[in-house]
């Protein structure tokens, strides 16, 4: 098996080990810990008050705006990685292209900024 594939076997093995450790600890806890559920214990914790309704409802849209801007920038960053590694091979042409690409995104960021999408209030 080539070395390249072997490294990804390691990655998979470590993910498996992470899940395995958590499962093992949960098993140990299940064997050792008492289990005595009561009605009050199984309600959601709301500082001692009786919870009203569920939590699965509406929440502030700020998070949504930030998530949208984030998606744009995260995709941008993925494009930056190959360019960064090959910076010297691609030379000035690469820098100019990336600068144009970034400029378009920065205009977007500036627009969001002026629209007060980046301010919480």
């Amino acid at each position, binding site marked *: 098996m080539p070395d390249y594939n072997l490294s990804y*076997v390691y990655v998979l093995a470590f993910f498996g080990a*992470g899940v395995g450790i*958590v499962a093992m600890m949960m098993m140990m806890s299940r064997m050792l810990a008492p*289990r005595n559920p009561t009605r009050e214990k199984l309600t959601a914790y709301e500082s001692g008050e009786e919870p009203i309704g569920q939590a699965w409802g509406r929440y502030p849209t700020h998070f949504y705006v930030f998530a949208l801007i984030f998606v744009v920038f995260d995709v941008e960053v993925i494009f930056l990685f190959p360019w960064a590694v090959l910076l010297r091979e691609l030379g000035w042409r690469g820098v100019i292209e990336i600068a144009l690409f970034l400029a378009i995104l920065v205009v977007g960021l500036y627009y969001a900024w002026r629209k007060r999408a980046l301010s919480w209030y």
Partner: protein
Amino acid sequence: MPEGPFGLDPAIWAVVRLVIALALLVVVVLNGALSQVYIERKVQAFIQNRYGPIHTGPWGLLQTVADAVKLLGKEDIRARLTDRWFFLSAPGIVFSPMLASWVVIPFAPGLVGADLNIGLLYLATLGSMTVLGIVIAGWASNNKYSLIGGLRSGGQLISYEVPQILSLVTVAMLVGSLSMVDIVDAQPGWQLTVFILPLAFLTYFIAGLAETNRNPFDLPEAESELVAGFLTEYSGMRYAVFFMAEYGEVSVVSAIVATLWFGGWHGPFVDTAGPLLGPVLGVLWFTLKTYAFVLVFMWIRATLPRFRIDQLMALCWKLLIPATLTNLLVTAVLLLAFPGSLLPVAIANWIMLGLFVLAIPLFQRRRLASLRARLRAAA
């Protein structure tokens, strides 16, 4: 047939090496989390002029062990209205990426789990997987505190991921490789990346504080308003898993800082000490560097107050992202304009670091002014 090390068949050696690497890293990570809890409590105590744990074992050394045993024996409560499978799987989703991050980190010359050629990208990807676990935990708990904590955490982590990855890209540009081993090899002696790219180090460290939900960015767990944030509904061992994952993340970020900017295992006598002692010294230097940054994390926690959520978002989007983008482009242009000499890059980066530090008070002044104007308008 070619023979592997210790006269073993290469195929068998591959399996043996994998098992050894797994066992070592699991022990190191779990012990690291346990000892970090103890160190954190002691450091906080000394900073606040008190003793910290002293009763269990000598100097209270066994306190964390006792806590772990206690958590193991605690009832594991799953409230009635939670989303069962998401609630149960969230700790694993947070924990296993943290463990898997250690695969690519070189501990000493030749001592690395797997030298992936996309090491940095891999680390960035695993860092963002934590967000999934935390948002899932917040949503699945069906608790209002948890939901707000999980969402805040999601918003914070995804925002700070952008400057964090941009800082990593700057280092990749300098070295011309994404492999962690290549990055360490590029910094022999005093040629540490931190002297060349100080601003990227600072922005990465700030973003790293936010990515690990540590002070002053620990809003998702702001106990005065959200009880325990996304952890509110978790108890017993499940809570402990989240806790360990969090401390593990702190050491992962510190290890990345030590590797990328401070030369990883490079240190005095590593190259001259021989094939057996050299790696041991390498591990020692690497651990010392990593724990130095873990201590800085703790020091910051004891010193700084918590941000408000709008300040947190503004710091990221209005200061860190423009700064890292500028830094990236300037570094790229200078690297191309002066091939063969890193001095212009270093000088420009130190100037940019100075400008960045000067920009912070200006930024605060403007924010305060707008806040006062709002208050006046409201009065």
